[in-house]
């Protein structure tokens, strides 16, 4: 079977549509993962043992099971108890929850890396817990986390094709529907691969820059 450039141009608009949805899902998923991760990290530091244990186990469970099955769970099981979600929303929630458990570890490491002396100094300066977090701990903890967080967002971007399994019309699903309509697989699937490779290679360059910019902290 030969590569047909005319066919490539013909299907390009459809695929671009898919790319938009893919990027949208990644962005929304990243925001949700960043928030969920922070929530999990804070809950695990909570002095309440029951709370930190439960959240820890839940996070461990989510991290140990496949994203695809979690997506099915959100999309097919939740309607049984009356929560009907549009596919894209279900997908974003799935991505956000799954990667939230990963980003939680990044936050944890970032917060743990702030030296003890900083906490003690904050206490010595009579700062409240709120002031300690917002003025002392967070500003020092965030920059070293940025490359690691970006790394997970790139990983998330590469998992978005799974959303096609719950009928989100993202890049992979558009490619599949094109392939099934014309019964030509070679161009659509190869193009999807090329799109992903192009975007991830660009994001790797961005990541290297982030690492140079934020990776090292001066002590």
């Amino acid at each position, binding site marked *: 079977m030969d590569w047909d450039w005319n066919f490539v141009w013909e299907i390009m608009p459809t695929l671009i549509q898919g790319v938009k949805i893919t990027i949208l899902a990644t962005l929304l998923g990243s925001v949700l993962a960043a928030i969920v991760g922070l929530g999990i990290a804070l809950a695990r530091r909570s002095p309440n043992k029951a709370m930190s244990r439960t959240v820890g186990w839940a996070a461990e469970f989510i991290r140990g*099971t*496949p994203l695809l099955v979690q997506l099915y*769970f959100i999309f*097919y099981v939740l309607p*049984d108890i009356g929560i009907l979600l549009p596919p894209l929303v279900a997908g974003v929630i799935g991505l956000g929850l799954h990667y939230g458990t990963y980003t939680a570890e990044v936050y944890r490491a970032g917060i743990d890396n702030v030296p003890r002396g900083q906490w003690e100094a904050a206490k010595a300066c009579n700062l409240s817990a709120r002031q300690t977090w917002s003025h002392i701990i967070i500003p020092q903890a965030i920059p070293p986390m940025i490359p690691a967080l970006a790394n997970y967002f790139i990983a998330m971007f590469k*998992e978005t094709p799974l959303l096609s*399994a719950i009928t989100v019309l993202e890049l992979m699903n558009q490619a599949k529907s094109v*392939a099934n309509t014309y019964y030509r697989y070679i161009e659509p*699937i190869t193009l999807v691969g090329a799109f992903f*490779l192009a975007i991830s290679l660009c994001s790797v360059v961005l990541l290297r820059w982030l690492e140079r910019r934020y990776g090292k902290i001066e002590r």
Partner: protein
Amino acid sequence: MTQWSGYLGLIVQGALVTIELTLMGSVLALIMAFLAGMGRLSRFFVLRALATAYIEFFRGTSIFVQLFFAYFVLPLVGLELTPLQAGVLALGLNVGAYAAEVVRGAIQSIGREQYEACIALNLGRWHGMRHVILPQALLVMLPTFGNNAIELLKATSVVSLISLADLTFQAQVVRAQTGNTMVPFATILVIYFILALLISWGVRSLERRMARGLDGVRV
């Protein structure tokens, strides 16, 4: 009253396929990891370039796209694969690319003095690698290999989309036949989690065994 025992049989069959895929994929991933990881450290430019291209390509595109490529596009260029072969190939090559970076990092983490000692003892490149560097590097690699194996286990759920009857696929069958969504999906989530726990437990005990007799070697 639904005949859950019969459906449980289906789920168990699926679990066996998932385990088979994970094992075979891990073996392929391990081989690729060492080939590509050592390739990146090679003296020869061609080997380095090949290994880098392999790693960047497989880390840059999504496992899902690679799987579809293996299953739908390779037959068009004359390489017919069964779903199982396509699954093992895609999973092994994908995770192998990630693990290759682990191999490279672990080998590079071994101190300079070890290499100098190899030269001083007149060991060739191969002998030094085999008897001095790798035994120490393996211990550094193991924990990350464990994480990679869990990633591979989770990625196996994707093969259900190319009609391979793994856990996720069987859960869909049970769901279609019984109309019950909650039970099959909750069951397989638990099974995946148990398998992941088994892997991390196995890797930890392997690590303990390999660390024996190496006390004091690493500081």
